[in-house]
């Protein structure tokens, strides 16, 4: 960049966050890069990312890469100088320069302050201890993830939007989580007491503990936080404490430069500060006495500021009615405007359905809507918000308004879902990005967009929090005339039906073949695809044991040939070693087979067995034959079924062992081997709480104690490490076996194909699983009985079947050709 000959004005942006960069984006959209040479300073070492989505990163739904808004290439392509990890420390208004912590001084013609906010931190003793963090940036999330990997207990201080999202994310990462909240109900600024209570009940069911009306007195610990002490005497032990009680504008820099500040940096309707060459946007500003924490008005500010910077003298910012929502999977919350009637002349209408966890409330004033709180079903939220903004007179539909649009407008003959056709063009669809219906429809038509991802790319609608995805899809359908299949994710592209719907129909309608299922649901491809073939095959196998015939061609190669394909097309062979036990005869057999077939690699697995790697497909039956002779059978190391039961030596040898963990492991393995499941299943049995068999990261683990057996479920040691949830403590091996059988069957009958137990339990909730297995003993016995019934059809060693000639065509080569 040639500093002297560049004729453009110099714009310096302090803050590489959402507000500042949105303003730059809007400016580029208005004028390209012709007017300003832009320099951006960011305190964080990262490129510009979507801070709203940090909770999704924490919960594991998105990666950091997913939430990057603009990559470094984008800055380069738009000729923007980006200095990350280098906060500005001084503004010199006389000289019109800014100076950074690293000592870089850059002159400006116009300056944009977008320094955002920082977490509110009251003077609580212990706040500076290691193990305490906020929930504000990527570094905080990294800290929380690191803690979730190595530690168990988290306490979140603050039961507002941010605190609850932090709590849910940490819970998803396997920590036990408690939330301390100063007020009697959660999210009291967005929800009335009734909705707040429903929210607390649902989160409580998902295993988060709550300490409401809890005033934090101190965070305890000497070298590192070890708990939270409340003023009323309650104490909560903690390895990690997350402070999420609110934010305050970052105004120090502006104040030092003697720019007018109050709670925030004071700006006018044109977004300029008390210095006409200096503008400010985002969470650092105060406009007409109001400060901002939600993204929608900040996008409006960015638009106005960009227009002003590029010479428009008319653009004005005005704050509008706002709505909020919570990003916790499966919990739908919407709120806008007043939470309750201000006085007797206001009209408050509520609808409450405790069984289904639904709650709706609207507040009317002079026949117009001034507030809405929705819990459980938020489909009408955007419609209510529009009614509030438009100040629509609702007197005629007052009695029906709480039932939602479809009912309130009955007579205009609408089927279901939001009626996008009748929305005005200026109806706001995406609150996060300030995109109206007209903007989306225009983009769809002009650029011939057909998919959600294209619309997101071009308009940003639904690209931030994603809550308006349904509306955007409806608009695409409306504008293109093509219906977008939606709601429950479909099993695959061959159908619009979801897993649960299909599983139900298989049982209820007696569908007994793949063809039955495909006909019943109108499959798009007669053969299905690589996603639905194995899924349907499994669902039918599970629903009709002994009746349905397995379809080998619908299986992934490993389950078809009963070995694990490797990157070079050879296979690995792992014989079962019950509970990790083996004998000299077995080891001899393994050694000879390795020598005889020149098997290149022999490896001890993490599941306490021996893996023979690099076996050629045509050698498999002969290898198995030799192993069978020594009594070794398939270890199903290739199957979506029971893999290993890892054990420690237990009371037979170990001086700490409390029960015969090895023996119990063998019994579990003998009971459960051979069964097909939605995904692989791993068990472990530890003989004492030292847990040498690592039972707490298995699908089902048993930890023996003097008093009996603790059964734990839903653990995982893979990409997303998840510690098990405790299920129950029982006193006998027979009970362990009954619980294990019932757990296997519940998982087999209700999880989606390719769901491990951990995500399945995260989805349905441990309390649901407990209600089926612990609270309902008759149901548990019935599940176990169904499991044992289905086991009698599958406990046949697939290797010996094939050694005897079954499926021989699979392993035979096609006849060799001779030259013509």
């Amino acid at each position, binding site marked *: 960049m040639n500093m002297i000959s560049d004729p453009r004005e110099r714009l310096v942006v302090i803050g590489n966050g959402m507000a500042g960069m949105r303003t730059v984006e809007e400016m580029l959209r208005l004028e390209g890069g012709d007017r300003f040479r832009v320099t951006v300073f960011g305190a964080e070492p990262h490129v510009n990312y979507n801070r709203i989505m940090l909770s999704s990163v924490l919960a594991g739904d998105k990666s950091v890469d997913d939430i990057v808004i603009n990559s470094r290439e984008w800055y380069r392509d738009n000729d923007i100088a980006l200095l990350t990890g280098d906060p500005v420390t001084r503004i010199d208004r006389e000289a019109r320069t800014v100076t950074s912590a690293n000592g870089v001084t850059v002159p400006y013609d116009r300056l944009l302050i977008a320094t955002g906010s920082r977490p509110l931190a009251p003077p609580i003793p212990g706040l500076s201890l290691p193990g305490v963090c906020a929930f504000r940036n990527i570094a905080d999330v990294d800290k929380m993830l690191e803690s979730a990997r190595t530690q168990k207990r988290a306490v979140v201080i603050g039961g507002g939007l941010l605190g609850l999202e932090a709590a849910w994310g940490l819970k998803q990462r396997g920590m036990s989580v408690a939330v301390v909240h100063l007020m009697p109900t959660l999210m009291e600024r967005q929800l009335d007491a009734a909705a707040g209570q429903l929210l607390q009940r649902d989160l409580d069911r998902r295993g988060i503990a709550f300490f409401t009306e809890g005033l934090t007195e101190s965070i305890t610990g000497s070298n590192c936080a070890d708990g939270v002490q409340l003023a009323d005497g309650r104490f909560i032990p903690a390895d990690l404490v997350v402070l999420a009680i609110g934010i305050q504008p970052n105004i120090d820099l502006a104040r030092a430069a003697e720019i007018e500040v109050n709670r925030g940096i004071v700006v006018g309707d044109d977004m300029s500060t008390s210095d006409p060459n200096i503008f400010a946007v985002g969470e650092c500003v105060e406009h007409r006495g109001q400060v901002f924490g939600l993204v929608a008005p900040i996008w409006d500010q960015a638009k106005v500021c960009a227009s002003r910077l590029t010479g428009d003298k008319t653009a004005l910012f005005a704050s509008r009615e706002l709505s909020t929502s919570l990003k916790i999977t499966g919990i739908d919350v919407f709120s806008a405007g007043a939470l309750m009637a201000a006085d007797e002349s206001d009209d408050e209408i509520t609808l409450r359905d405790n069984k289904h966890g639904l709650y709706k409330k609207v507040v009317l004033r002079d026949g117009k809507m001034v507030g809405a709180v929705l819990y459980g079903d938020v489909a009408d939220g955007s419609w209510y918000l529009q009614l509030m903004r438009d100040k629509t007179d609702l007197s005629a539909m007052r009695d029906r308004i709480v039932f939602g649009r479809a009912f309130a407008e009955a007579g205009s003959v609408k089927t279901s879902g939001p009626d996008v056709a009748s929305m005005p063009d200026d109806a706001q669809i995406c609150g996060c990005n300030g995109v109206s219906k007209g903007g989306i429809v225009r983009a769809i038509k002009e650029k011939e967009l057909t998919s959600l991802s294209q619309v997101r790319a071009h308009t940003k609608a639904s690209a931030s929090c994603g809550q308006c995805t349904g509306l955007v899809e409806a608009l695409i359908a409306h504008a293109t005339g093509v219906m977008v299949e939606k709601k429950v994710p479909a099993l695959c592209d061959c159908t619009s039906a979801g897993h649960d719907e299909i599983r139900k129909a298989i049982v209820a309608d007696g569908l007994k073949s793949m063809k039955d299922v495909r006909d019943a649901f109108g499959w798009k491809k007669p053969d299905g695809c690589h996603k639905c073939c194995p899924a349907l095959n499994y669902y039918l196998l599970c629903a009709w044991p002994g009746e349905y015939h397995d379809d080998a061609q619908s299986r992934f190669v490993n389950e078809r040939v009963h070995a694990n*394909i490797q*990157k070079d097309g050879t296979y690995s062979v792992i014989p079962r070693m019950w509970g990790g036990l083996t004998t000299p005869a077995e080891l001899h057999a393994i050694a000879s087979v390795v020598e005889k077939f020149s098997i290149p690699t022999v490896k001890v697995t993490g599941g306490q067995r021996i893996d023979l790697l690099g076996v050629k497909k045509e050698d498999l039956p002969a290898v198995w034959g030799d192993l069978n002779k020594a009594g070794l059978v398939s270890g199903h190391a290739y199957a979506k079924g029971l893999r290993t039961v890892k054990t420690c030596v237990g009371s037979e040898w170990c001086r700490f062992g409390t029960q015969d963990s090895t023996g119990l492991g063998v019994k579990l393995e003998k009971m459960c081997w051979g069964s097909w499941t939605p995904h692989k299943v791993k068990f472990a049995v530890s003989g004492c709480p030292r847990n040498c068999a690592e039972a707490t990261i298995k699908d089902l683990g048993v930890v023996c104690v003097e008093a009996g057996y603790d059964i734990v479920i839903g653990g995982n040691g893979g990409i997303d490490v998840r510690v098990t949830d405790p299920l129950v403590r029982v006193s006998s091996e027979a009970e362990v076996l009954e619980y294990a059988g019932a757990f296997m069957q519940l998982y087999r009958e209700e999880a989606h194909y390719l769901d491990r137990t951990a995500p399945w339990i995260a989805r349905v909730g441990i309390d649901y699983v407990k209600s089926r297995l612990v609270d309902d003993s008759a149901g548990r016995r019935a599940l176990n009985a169904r499991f044992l019934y289905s086991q009698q059809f599958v406990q046949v060693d697939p290797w010996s079947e094939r050694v005897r000639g079954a499926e021989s065509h699979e392993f035979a080569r096609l006849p060799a050709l001779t030259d013509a």
Partner: protein
Amino acid sequence: MTAIDWKNIGPLANIPVRGARRLCFGLGGRPIAIFRTSEDEVFALVDECPHRSGPLSEGIVSGHTVTCPLHNWVIGLADGKATGADEGETQTVPVKLVAGEVHVGVPKVLARGRV
């Protein structure tokens, strides 16, 4: 175009419906996969996924596509091209059904001298 020799590799029944078999001789040292669809059509491709050379003959066949067992690339049987967002192409091999027997076309120069 190079002249080709048609080689009879035996009855269609040797290949499972919605399945495939790998051929014992290769094309210039590369293995060949013969596919059979639910409609009893046959296709032949070099048995290497364009992605990481996975054995397509071990994949799940549905309609006119096969899914590579290594990383789930979906390859068109007729043109050997990756479908969806993936890009790549494996070589197709001429193949036809004559009276229930599968005939594979191999370039004369390669066929000669190979056993």
